[in-house]
């Protein structure tokens, strides 16, 4: 049974009641199809009203759902012939970022993404998707490889942030992130970033200097976690719900601020409810976005990225 989020409780409860009723009807051999039909219609209504009116904090719950599909799940569902490539050639291999080459619609492509675990054991191995410098340096190595062989790059963003640890600082966490930003700016191949879960701060942005940024409907992208914002703003991390609203971190918010280009709709209740269906929708968006970018030459791709980020920001010029 999948983890139930507070806002969807009415839906889950009604669904359970309908199932129960079906069983009872079957066992008692009574025809209750009329009643069941009515309840199912109500369920559909309820689903629609709840899942289409999600508050920012509800979306945070979906983005953090333990069963939310990860980078490797999408790689598995969308690409063919994926070969994972390891290591930064400098220090080690960071399991919090995965990357490799694959085939997409018959074309070679490089894929890089933050990788969370689903079980505790896997999460420990993946460091909860929070990379060290070697993760970012592996990502950059694979991007430069993609550029050499002239294939597009897709980055999946899914991290609470870069790991705040002693070793990470010693090995240059700042430089690793900063280097990715400036190097991504100059890449002569199409770069597409897709936020699939939580996009947390510089650790997310280090895979995010793309020609197009797409966000799954219930993913978030922020400068600081809602808990972090709450403890700074109101000295109380339990006010995360209010902070999630104040900080404007949802896909529609980022669309309004002209930071992202596309919102990828999610299946009702969140991507974890139907990964195959979700992957299909994502594949359509990825196909269309790659096609859009295919008309740009090397110089235009760099210029396109320049203009995209140059335009982000709000101020008064007088």
């Amino acid at each position, binding site marked *: 049974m999948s983890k139930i989020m507070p806002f969807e409780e009415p839906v889950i409860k009604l669904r359970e009641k309908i199932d129960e009723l079906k069983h009872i009807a079957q066992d008692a051999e009574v025809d209750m199809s009329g009643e069941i039909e009515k309840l199912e219609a109500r369920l559909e209504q309820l689903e629609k009203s709840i899942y289409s009116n999600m508050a920012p904090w509800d979306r945070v719950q979906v983005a953090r759902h333990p069963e939310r599909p990860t980078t490797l799940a999408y790689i598995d569902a969308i690409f063919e012939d994926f070969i994972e490539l390891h290591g930064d050639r400098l220090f080690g291999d960071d399991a919090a970022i995965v990357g490799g080459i694959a085939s997409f619609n018959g074309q070679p492509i490089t894929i890089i993404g933050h990788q969370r675990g689903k079980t505790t054991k896997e999460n420990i191995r993946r460091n909860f998707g929070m990379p060290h410098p070697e993760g970012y340096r592996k990502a950059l190595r694979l991007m430069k490889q993609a550029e050499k062989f002239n294939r597009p790059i897709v980055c999946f963003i899914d991290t609470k942030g870069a790991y705040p640890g002693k070793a990470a600082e010693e090995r240059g966490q700042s430089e690793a992130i900063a280097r990715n930003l400036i190097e991504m700016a100059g890449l002569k191949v199409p770069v597409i970033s897709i936020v699939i879960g939580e996009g947390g701060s510089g650790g997310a942005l*280090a895979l995010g200097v793309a020609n197009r940024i797409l966000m799954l409907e219930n993913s978030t992208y922020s400068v600081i976690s809602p808990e972090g914002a709450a403890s700074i703003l109101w000295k109380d991390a339990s006010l995360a719900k209010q902070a999630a609203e104040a900080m404007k971190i949802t896909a529609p918010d980022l669309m309004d601020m002209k930071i992202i280009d596309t919102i990828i709709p999610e299946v009702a209740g969140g991507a974890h409810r139907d990964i195959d269906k979700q992957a299909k929708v994502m594949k359509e968006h990825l196909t269309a976005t790659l096609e859009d970018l295919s008309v740009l030459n090397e110089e235009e791709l760099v210029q396109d990225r320049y203009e995209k980020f140059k335009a982000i920001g709000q101020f008064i010029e007088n």
Partner: protein
Amino acid sequence: MSIRDIFSVNRKKQRGNFSATKEKDFPEDLMTKCPECRKIHVTKAVEQNLKVCPNCQHHLKLTAQERVAIFLDEGSFTSLDDHLQTTNPLGFPAYVEKIEVDKKKTGLNEAVLTGVGTLQGDKVVVAIMDSHFRMGSMGSVVGEKITRAIEKATELRVPFIIFTASGGARMQEGVLSLMQMAKTSVALSRHSEMGLLYISILTHPTTGGVSASFASVGDFNIAEPQALIGFAGRRVIEQTVREKLPDDFQTAEFLLAHGQLDAIFHRHEMRDKVATIVKLHRKGEATHV
């Protein structure tokens, strides 16, 4: 003229450029207590020493205008983009009011002063962050001013030099402030593509998103002694790793030992050393200094 003389002469000149409110940065107090060794000095003596503690060599914070005065050639500085104004994109209560207070306090329109000047005769574009303005945090205006300064350096085909001092992203501007890291990076990438020189000088403190973007990717990464430089905050790291961090953790000296910096220059030698680096990168001339 010695660099100390330049400091005292330029200071009077610069003050004229940045309105009378500057008086606050030079408190009436005749005495100054070093925040590091706690020794009390005559303020004038500390100022004549470029705000370095004569006892322990602690580098006190400078305002952006003071930095201009001790770093660039006298009277050579022309500021850029003083007209850009901060808005309140997320509608945070009292945000604009806080900005107004710091504008008055610092004489700046935002937490960075940018402009064109000369360094021992070489034309350069500089950006000087000022931690007296909202802790030097980076929002849309800071990102835009730095980006335009880099673009100016690219247009003029001259070196870009930044003095960083920042607590990181400006939280009240949310993800817009995060994106300024990317915005400044695309401009730096283009400047670099032209084969132009970028010198990053990290001063106390340089942390968070500023550390994790332009501050760390200079052709030369230089720091002032003892400057705090790091990605994550010390407290956050201690809570995460549950171990005691060394006293010198995230200091300039710590970063130098871990291969993250090219050099640490004392404030007294910063101008000469950086000018030498610039001279060694002059185009189409003999490079002997």
